[in-house]
């Protein structure tokens, strides 16, 4: 995650419907770290595909145009 602090090129992607720029070469785990999200408490959909293996987050490198949905359980009936 240290490299995300370094200046350099960024890529544009969409996270929960909003445009977002992240450092080039970031993994999904890097992004979740930046957002301070506990991977155990959320579910990630990457370009419409649900990622069921949380261990793979650290090897998934995000690329320009990626669309991510980060969801969790909220109160409901």
């Amino acid at each position, binding site marked *: 995650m240290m490299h995300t602090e370094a200046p350099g090129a960024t890529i544009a992607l969409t996270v*929960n419907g909003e445009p977002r720029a992240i450092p080039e070469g970031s993994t999904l785990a890097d992004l979740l770290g930046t957002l301070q999200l506990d991977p155990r408490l959320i*579910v990630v959909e990457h370009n419409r595909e649900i990622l069921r293996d949380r261990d793979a987050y650290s090897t998934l490198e995000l690329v320009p145009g990626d669309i991510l949905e980060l969801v*969790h*359980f*909220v109160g409901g009936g």
Partner: protein
Amino acid sequence: MTVSSSSGTLDSPATSSHDPADLPFVVGGQQFRSRLMVGTGKYASNAEMVAAIEASGADVVTVAVRRVDLDRSHEEGVLHHLSPERFFLLANTAGCYTADEAMRYARLGRAAGFNDFVKLEVIGDEETLLPDTAGLVEATRTLSAEGFRVMAYTNDDLITALRLEDAGAVAVMPLASPIGSGLGLLNPYAIRTIKHRLSVPIIVDAGVGTASDACLTMEQGVDGILMNTAIAAAREPLRMAAAMQLAVTAGRHAYLAGRMPRREVAVPSSPLAGMLD
């Protein structure tokens, strides 16, 4: 067993553990303790939500799947407040208007990793929140084939209920009246008919307004009730949660006991013999 609540003032009767005089409450191969299932929405605070759920004695609680608020301007996820070890988290597909959308939410909910149950909703109309029954049957069939255990929220129509069972639903959940309406059990006959004709558990979902509604619903012979607003929107949610637990238990016992026949004439309870001259 006494169900504790955060206030420590609402004692619940010995009803939340399995009653040996009753059949076990099993849905899709999973046995549950309480025939009362509750939602987690619309509470004034998370602390009140947790306390009310504890007072209800429910072990199954429904949750919704939504985007994480990346700005943290809203409340945290429900997992910060409810232990998945203590409660069975039943993900719903509330807010979904097509079969595809509902299936997407169901898959996201399953990926959370707790269980493969889903409370499937495919809503057909914004004003009444009545189900799109065609989409519901379609999504039930597809999700069941994917290994989901589908509990299908539906209206009180027998034919739809039969089709949901045929499509693989492990429970059919007809409404008492529209979601959040609190109008109570509008058609006891329809609910009884569904119960008589289906083999899977029937859990009435939505419409109960107060304890007598819950009791009357259970007296129809259904296997359980799921409610949210009746507790969350009560002036005292904890007290209403405790009342609902009593009502569901009372209604279940009354059903099992078998009510006396209705008569249009009075029949004295005391002997006619032995009266003074």
